């Protein structure tokens, strides 16, 4: 039944948004993690979202594409393709007194943009809320359906 699919779709969205929130939390927490070498320094992590393509899957299983039944929706929710590290330039500060300073007196700070992360956090929590309300609506619709004929 299609109504149960909505639970899966909204659930996949909530899972993806919570991973996004998780990376944001990690980025903000490590915004000031200093390091003396460019290899060891923390870099901002970003999740890559992609739509779960169901049509491709159903076609592979022998179903006709674009059929009214199972293949109707082009995709079924969202998934995290992977988590990448940002390529943005590292934040180098001249702090010769710092214990982590290298020979030149520079300390490497992560390339985390705290303002950007805060905006990302708000966006993720808003999207999470949207998914919760979608699931709530689906629940109401399903409960309603169970009273049919009563």
């Amino acid at each position, binding site marked *: 039944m299609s109504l149960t*699919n909505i639970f899966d779709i909204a659930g996949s969205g909530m899972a993806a948004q919570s991973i*996004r929130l998780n990376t944001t939390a990690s980025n903000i927490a490590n915004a000031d993690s200093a390091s003396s070498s460019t290899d060891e320094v923390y870099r901002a992590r970003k999740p890559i979202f*992609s*739509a779960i393509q169901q049509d491709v899957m159903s076609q592979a299983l022998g179903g006709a594409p674009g*059929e009214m039944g199972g293949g*109707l929706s082009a995709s079924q929710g*969202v998934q995290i393709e992977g988590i990448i590290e940002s390529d943005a330039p590292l934040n180098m500060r001249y702090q010769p007194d710092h214990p982590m300073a290298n020979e030149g007196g520079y300390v490497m700070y992560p390339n985390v943009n705290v303002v950007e992360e805060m905006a990302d956090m708000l966006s993720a929590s808003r999207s999470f809320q949207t998914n919760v309300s979608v699931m709530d609506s689906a629940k109401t619709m399903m409960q*309603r359906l169970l009273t049919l*004929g009563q």
Partner: protein
Amino acid sequence: MAISFENALGIHQKALEVRVQRAEVLANNLVNADTPGFKARDIDFKAILGGVQSGQQAGGQLAMSTTNGKHLPQGGNGSAVGSNELLYRVPSQPSLDGNTVDTQQETAEFTKNTMQYQASFQLLNGKFKALNNAIRGE
């Protein structure tokens, strides 16, 4: 005389089914609001239900049968081109990453669809109640 549910319930059972499918498509749009390159989609409700209605009233007008998915549907009233296909929404504010989901619009459509689902449900429930009354004869 046998009771045919097909005739007794009319369009409402199909309407409820399409509402559920539309809810699924809209939920999928909302979930992919942050997916780069995702294109928002929607079902043309009127076209699908129009197709059902013209199928029901087959007496007046002969419907052209399509045996292959690639056959072009018959033009004219009711059956729009690609009636049971997913269409792409025309974006009002496409974002830089190619995403065309407008969360506000989709939320509004989803809420509207839920209300229309409840309306279809009430009508279908009314049909069942009427049948029940007829059977009991009270």
